[in-house]
């Protein structure tokens, strides 16, 4: 069974979202996703300053058997990509909700409120139907 922290929000495409104190949000991929991919060999994160739309592919996580796009859960502007992942992509496997964050972004006005993010319980339901 994969880990689904209760205090985060989620997307159907297996990203998690954490609101940070300063109004920005932090985004990563879930424990289920990292497990399905296997050992990550490469992660590409977006540059700071880039504007993204909701559901826009803006990062790539690559293992030996798969390479997946990561989608921006809400519209906004990227404030940072995790600089550690270039040298240590495996951190996403070992700590997907902590040190393995992929990017931080400043939501566009109203984007966070309008976003149809899933609660932990709803995301767990998604996993249960998928058989994760």
């Amino acid at each position: 069974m994969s880990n689904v922290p209760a205090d985060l929000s989620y997307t159907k495409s297996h990203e998690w979202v954490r609101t940070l104190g300063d109004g920005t949000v932090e985004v990563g991929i879930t424990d289920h996703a990292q497990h399905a991919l296997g050992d990550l060999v490469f992660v590409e994160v977006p540059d700071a300053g880039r504007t993204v739309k909701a559901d826009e592919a803006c990062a790539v996580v690559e293992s030996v058997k798969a390479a997946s796009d990561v989608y921006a859960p809400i519209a906004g502007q990227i404030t940072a990509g995790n600089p550690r992942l270039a040298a240590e992509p495996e951190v996403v496997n070992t700590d997907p909700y902590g040190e393995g964050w992929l990017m931080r972004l400043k939501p566009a006005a109203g984007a966070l409120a309008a976003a149809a993010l899933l609660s932990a319980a709803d995301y767990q339901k998604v996993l249960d139907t998928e058989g994760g």
Partner: protein
Amino acid sequence: MAFIPHTEADVAAMLAAIGVARIEDLFDEIPPELRVKSLVGVPEALNEMEIGRLMAERARSDGITLSFLGAGAYEHHIPAAVWAITTRGEFYSAYTPYQAEASQGTLQLIYEFQSMMARLTGMEVANASMYDGASATAEAALMAVRANRRSKSARILVPLTLHPHYRRVAVTTAANQGVKFEEVPYGAQEGVTLPEALARYETEDITALMVAQPNFFGRLEDVDALTDWAHARGILVIAVVNPTAAALLKPPGEWGARGADIAVGEGQPLGVPLSSGGPYFGFMATRMEYVRQMPGRIVGRTLDAAGKEGFTLTLQAREQHIRRAKATSNICTNQGLLMTAATIYLSLLGPQGLVRTAAMAHARTRELVAALTRVPGVRTAFNGPYFHETVLQLDRPVAPVLKALGSRGILGGLDLGTYYPELGNALLVCATETKTSADIDRYRGALTDALQGARAA
């Protein structure tokens, strides 16, 4: 039978095990109306002796003719060991090395090939080959579009001095993905891409510039100036090079201040016979920074579970079997056997042998040009240095001259009329280390005879 070993006893036993009466029953899921009665259009079988005889007759009728043709395919001496080893069953009938532990021979060979091509081109990393030089050039254009984050235009500058077939293949391959190829003219006297021709692109958003060295005319481009011009504007440089020439000429990795970004070319000169145009192989090399944008297979060295060194396909997540619609390319098969031959060839020749081959090819071409331009009515088309082929201009149409030479057992070169009509009666000639002074003299004599008689108006 079609190499089928089964006896009647085998078939009976197998049918019994399956539980059907006849082989025909195994096709009962196929709608009967789809079944073919007989293959009209396929002749009766021949046995090996008969097909051997037929092929020998056909080969004999084609014969072997003294040839001074280049234009993208070059005749070089191929050491006997190259194909003796390449056609060993263990190389010839092996598959793509997906099960790495059962394919260490092929995988290590690819690693050695990648290493040699990186060194030959002066680049940091090479892939395991592409279909041919033309398709490698097309793939380089697509790769440049992916790799050049700064540029959004997908406009690629293509000199007219790049092989005409390569330009056509690039368009056929990449036009459907929104890549726009823009032709850059060459200097009429010089036969190379001049800085003036690039002036109109000074401030345009261009993704990449292609530079051929030597170019299709055999002429040497000013690769440093072209490379620096492109890099100053954030334009990637795609080098299209001849691998034999790369032994003598400055390789793409050393062009300009920063080196070319992607190097491609036709690998046929490295131990692959002319064989009416194929199979050949394309090579591709680039900077480590772009390795994830490079299509095709790549082999990496790693360790096994006991800590021993071994080789495996790597970075496969870029490829079609994993990334599917988002793959860097749809390439699956490459040209493994030819790459094997090239690796053995390069090992046998080594640096000195390859340098000497290039040098001798150049020397023979110079000798050829000197001999032919002594014939009245023949002159060189361009001023400036060339390498192992060049363009001559005749005082009359080329086609009948070539026909006359052909009847004397000589293939004199390529008539450029259909490709570059602006060059008039132009002939692209090439001599490699396989030509002797006697061969050149024979050509000179036959050409003299062909040009005697009424001069063209």
